């Protein structure tokens, strides 16, 4: 054997040993199970902004054996996909995981993968949350509750006072709210706005944001579900709430009110600074988004009015504990702490997420809170009234897939690639493909 070959062989042997050592190190890093005084690390997985930093510190101070590590993902779709895979794979999910309203239904398909809070004293504290919020996180047979509510996405309409003024419309939030009791009034107001507006400013940012808000409103009134009924049958073309929401949105488009932006893209983000639109459907969590995108320049230019068509909600999240967690007991305790009325209040202070606990609604810290950025708008008054009276809207297990598919078809109408009717026919096909029927 030549010396060089011997060298190569030694290299292979060393590499093999090193690889083995690395693999073993990776496997060995997990800690053992938790005794009460043992040091444990709880992993919390969140998306977007949950505002829990202060709460983590407080919890760690009162539980010296617990260390909390949060992993955060900005993109909800990506987050939900990764979480779904980890739940299905049986490992890799956090000890406490945040789940969005639209995604929790999918996890309710596999309730055995999550701790059932009803076995953990949930029934004694369920008054901590709005009733419809609890219903959303409970299986159809009522036997398992897998999520504890965090925030709700009460609906309002955010608008630009400076652009309204320039177009000759009133700017006071009470008067603006009176402009649009219904969506038809909103469209009429938009037409007036376009006549007075300068440049290429449009009235509303996009078809999809408007559509989603309207859909949640209409579905809340009747029949209480959107694309799937409670038995998970696709009801896309038979549910009048869906068709009405589609038609109303198309009236907005036909009136030329939309700036044709795709939500949550760089162009959409840039449009906040470029005066491209004057109003945007505004679930509570959207206010943080507007503030982030419009930045310091936008301060005092924005205000919040009521949404046409009465109350509604879009979005809002839950905390769950996967049964794959090695520290279930501790994780349940932490989830309860974070989602308690006090915890929700702390998150509101830090991130502005609207609490889902009715116990907070009378709390002066919330009730009297004025959002400086939005011309001192009384946030609670606007959002809470809507959230209180809501009926739960059932979202099917494949809600997200159908929503993604038909939003695309709606955008094709918005961009003038299809007529409203062609778009609707295509949406029926897309919904079926996405639902797999």
């Amino acid at each position, binding site marked *: *054997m030549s010396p060089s070959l*011997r060298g*190569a*062989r*030694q290299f*292979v*042997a060393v590499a*093999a040993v090193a690889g083995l050592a690395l693999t073993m190190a990776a496997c060995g890093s997990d800690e053992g199970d938790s005794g009460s005084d043992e040091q444990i690390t709880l992993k919390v997985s969140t998306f977007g902004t949950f505002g829990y930093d202060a709460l983590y510190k407080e919890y760690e101070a009162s539980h010296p054996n617990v260390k909390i590590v949060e992993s955060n993902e900005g993109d909800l*779709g990506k987050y939900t*996909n990764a979480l*779904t*895979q980890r*739940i*299905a794979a049986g490992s890799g999910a956090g000890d406490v995981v945040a789940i969005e309203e639209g995604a929790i239904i*999918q*996890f309710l*398909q*596999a309730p055995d*993968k999550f701790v059932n809070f009803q076995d953990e004293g949930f029934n004694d504290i369920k008054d901590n949350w709005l009733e419809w919020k609890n219903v959303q996180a409970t299986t159809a047979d009522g036997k398992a509750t897998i999520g504890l509510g965090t925030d709700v996405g009460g609906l309002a309409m955010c608008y630009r006072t400076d652009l309204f003024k320039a177009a000759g419309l009133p700017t006071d939030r009470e008067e603006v709210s009176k402009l649009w009791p219904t969506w038809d009034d909103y469209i009429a107001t938009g037409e007036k706005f376009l006549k007075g507006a300068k440049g290429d400013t449009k009235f509303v940012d996009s078809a*999809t944001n408007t559509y989603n808000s309207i859909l949640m409103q209409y579905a809340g009134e009747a029949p209480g579900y959107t694309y799937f009924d409670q038995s998970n049958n696709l009801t896309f073309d038979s549910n009048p709430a869906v068709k009405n929401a589609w038609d109303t949105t198309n009236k907005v488009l036909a009136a030329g009110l939309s700036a044709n932006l*795709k*939500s*949550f*893209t*760089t*162009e*959409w983000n*840039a*449009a906040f600074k*470029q005066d*491209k639109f004057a109003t945007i459907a505004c679930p509570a969590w959207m206010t943080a988004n507007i503030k982030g995108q419009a930045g310091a320049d936008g301060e005092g230019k924005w205000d919040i009015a009521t949404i046409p068509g009465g109350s509604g909600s879009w979005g809002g999240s839950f905390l769950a504990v996967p049964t794959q967690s090695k520290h279930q007991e501790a994780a349940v305790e932490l989830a309860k702490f974070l989602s308690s009325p006090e915890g929700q209040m702390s998150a509101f202070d830090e991130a502005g997420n609207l609490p889902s606990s009715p116990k907070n609604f009378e709390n002066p810290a919330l009730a009297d809170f004025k959002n400086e950025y939005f011309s001192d708008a009384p946030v609670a008054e606007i959002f809470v009234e809507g959230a209180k009276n809501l009926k739960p809207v059932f979202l099917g297990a*494949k809600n*997200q*897939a159908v929503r*993604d*598919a038909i*939003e*695309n*078809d709606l*955008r*094709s109408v918005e*961009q003038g*690639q*299809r007529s409203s009717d062609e778009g609707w026919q295509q949406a029926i096909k897309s919904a079926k*493909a*996405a639902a*797999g029927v």
Partner: protein
Amino acid sequence: MSDTTIPVTPARTRSPWRSRLSRWDQKGSPYAFVSPFFILFGIFGAFPLLYTFWVSLHAWPLLGEHSFTGLDNYQKLLQDPQFWNAAKNTLGIFVVSTVPQFTLALWLAVTLNRKIRARTLFRIGVIIPNVTSVAAVTLIFGMIFAKGFGLVNWMLGWVGVAAIDWTAHTWSSWLAISFMVDWRWTGYNALIFLAAMQAIPGDLYEAAAIDGASRTRQFWSVTLPLLRPTLIFTTITSIIGGVQLFTEPLLFAPGAGAIQGGTLRQFQTLTMYLIENGFTRFEFGYAGAVAAMIFLLVLIISLINIWLVRRISGAD
């Protein structure tokens, strides 16, 4: 690696045991040396491949029950207009990007093969786009081709062309995506062509020059025929890359529903359709069938290529 500890000192007087060991060594060692690749391929290549096929024979939602359905997924797939649309887009974008890419790469290679100043610098330069992150490249190109504030529309504005909504039409989206692909891969192919060109003996050119052939004539009659095997190789690698095209179209129109590749699915590629089925619809069985079809497609095109290679070398 059981045999790595065997001492292999060349002994003058060999015991039978030693010589037997040595024989094993001679026979077995080559296999041991190549085995890491095959073991890794088995774990990360063959097993997932077979498992994907197994999954594709099932109704396999990510959360919930799996049931064996035989070839149902394939039957459904063949009648699925969204699948054929994705196949059309994939092949279309491949053609639109590859033809200019190879032309440009050949031109670059010819230029770099000449005696020009700072040749090494330029040769390094053409490969730089290839080592940048594809995601970063795509995000920047996404901004360049943006409707509202994009660089391209701004420049088109100088010559009085109205702003184009690049993501909205089939032709414009294919063109923009092809730009991104070409930006990354032209230099890479140019370097491969360059390497092949340098292997062409210089006396062929000298002879051609003596015969009075112009530079252009030399390119067509000497360079190009001798580059044929290299061209076939780059075509195959481009096909494999092209059929797997994913990041560029995905990030071209980011945000919700990006996986559908535009409002009319006008730039959804096969791999995007695969991911849509797997990770938006959570139908792993159906996604597995799409994966198998992609595999089949690559196989068919590669076989056509091998056939072409045989024909060409036979003609020589």
